[in-house]
């Protein structure tokens, strides 16, 4: 009870902080808001990525959106476990194939079965390189095979990597945008490589090409 209340307050505080820092703004696809249940897949460059997606989603979409995150990172300390589990209700997956007892795709499909949405980062890790996007892992394809009825929504997070680059602990306030693309689904007879390539292209097409979209 007290734990729930603390978690609720902490989530509001974290979201307000993220908004005050970045003036985060959602840019929706011309088709409007994404479907109620979706798999949001986004570029990953900062620990704050899913917070920002969370912060710009309208409440009725946010309340069912659960981030998918690495268990070994979020279970490291009591505080991070509290933030990961209680505050953000993250779906914690074991990334190391040797150590895991549960199949991550199975885990995610079960959560989708409960009616939740997922926020996933198909690059698998934070992108610290000069490349705009790292090659996707295949999990997104396997998930799409398991739940072909759920729409996949590409989400491009812009500028958050400049707010808090790796190794820094003081964030700097910069304006961030979160761009939602057109929902996509697995096509009949689409191969894994075709689907992954299509998903990567869909996400990259949302990235700003010039300074024009910087703000």
């Amino acid at each position, binding site marked *: 009870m007290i734990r729930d209340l603390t978690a609720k307050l902490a989530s509001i505080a974290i979201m307000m902080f993220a908004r005050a820092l970045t003036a985060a703004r959602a840019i929706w696809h011309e088709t409007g808001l994404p479907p109620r249940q979706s798999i949001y897949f986004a570029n990953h460059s900062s620990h704050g990525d899913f917070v920002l997606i969370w912060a710009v989603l309208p409440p009725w979409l946010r309340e069912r959106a659960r981030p998918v995150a690495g268990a070994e990172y979020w279970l490291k300390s009591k505080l991070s476990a509290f933030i990961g589990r209680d505050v953000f209700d993250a779906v914690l997956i074991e990334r190391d194939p040797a150590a895991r007892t549960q199949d991550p795709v199975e885990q995610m499909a079960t959560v989708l079965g409960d009616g939740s949405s997922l926020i996933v980062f198909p690059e698998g890790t934070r992108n610290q390189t000069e490349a705009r996007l790292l090659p996707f892992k295949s999990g997104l394809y396997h998930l799409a095979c398991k739940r072909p009825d759920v729409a996949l929504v590409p989400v491009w997070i812009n500028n958050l990597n400049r707010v808090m680059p790796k190794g820094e602990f*003081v964030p700097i306030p910069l*304006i961030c945008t979160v761009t939602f693309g057109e929902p996509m689904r697995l096509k009949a007879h689409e191969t894994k490589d075709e689907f992954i390539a299509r998903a990567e292209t869909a996400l990259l097409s949302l990235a700003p090409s010039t300074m024009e979209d910087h703000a």
Partner: protein
Amino acid sequence: MSAASLDMLKLLLGVGGILVLASSIGYVLKQRLSPDGSNGAIENLNARIKAWWAMVVLIAIAFVAGRVGVLLLFAFCSFAALREFITLINTRRGDHWAIAAAFFVVLPINYFLLWAEQYGIYSIFVPVYAFLLMPIVAVMRGDTRDFLLRISEVQWALMICVFCASHVPALLTLQIPGYEGRNVLLIAFLVIVVQSSDVLQYVWGKLFGRTKIAPSLSPSKTVEGFVGGVASATLIGASLWWITPFTPAQAALMSFIITMMGFFGGLVMSAIKRDRGVKDWGHLIEGHGGLIDRLDSVVFSAPIFFHLTRYWWSLT
């Protein structure tokens, strides 16, 4: 009620009346020409009028809250403007500390010194101390690529968004004989003259604009708009002499200088936007773009207005 608050009330009623008139005109135009919201110009006009209401209400609340209210309002404006500015400039990993210091050290100290009315240190804190501190902090990281460029951009951001913008609330620190307790009206004077000049240049330009004044910088600015806007805003400023320590002629001259600085400030800030390839500084204010889009003319006129007033009228 003191004479100062009576004047403030008169001013507020005047501004409120103009906004009521503007809202009514906007409403009629929408009903007649754009009932389905399809006319972009009218939708933008109405968004702007709505944002004006919000801005006037915010400024009025700050005035009522007194010195601390005004300082907090402008400290927030500086913060939001600095965030817009730094979002658009070239930064590298090596600038992280310098930029963090700009936000969390330089900005608060600048406003603290204003609160403490320490003019001697306030007036040189950003141009001297921060000017030297920024490159020192950045050089610690050892990244020399584009060093001068990166440092100048952060320094410019601080000068424009923190130092220049804070000269609006700095008007509160002036001590003008016979004008005690009325300094907040000087802020009202500056803001009304600058903003009415912006609006009137737009209106004159829309009505009679033929000759583009600086096509490579701002395609919408015309000679007719410029002349009409500056002349009419100067008249408005002159007619507001009763809220200032100036005579009507002095108020007119001050207004003229303010509007000229505002006009060229707008051009300079627009040149920066062009260079960066953006149309607006941000999206904070609906219909206006970012905060700097609204503040550009104020930041250029405020320091000059402050120092002219200080040199000739103030004891401090």
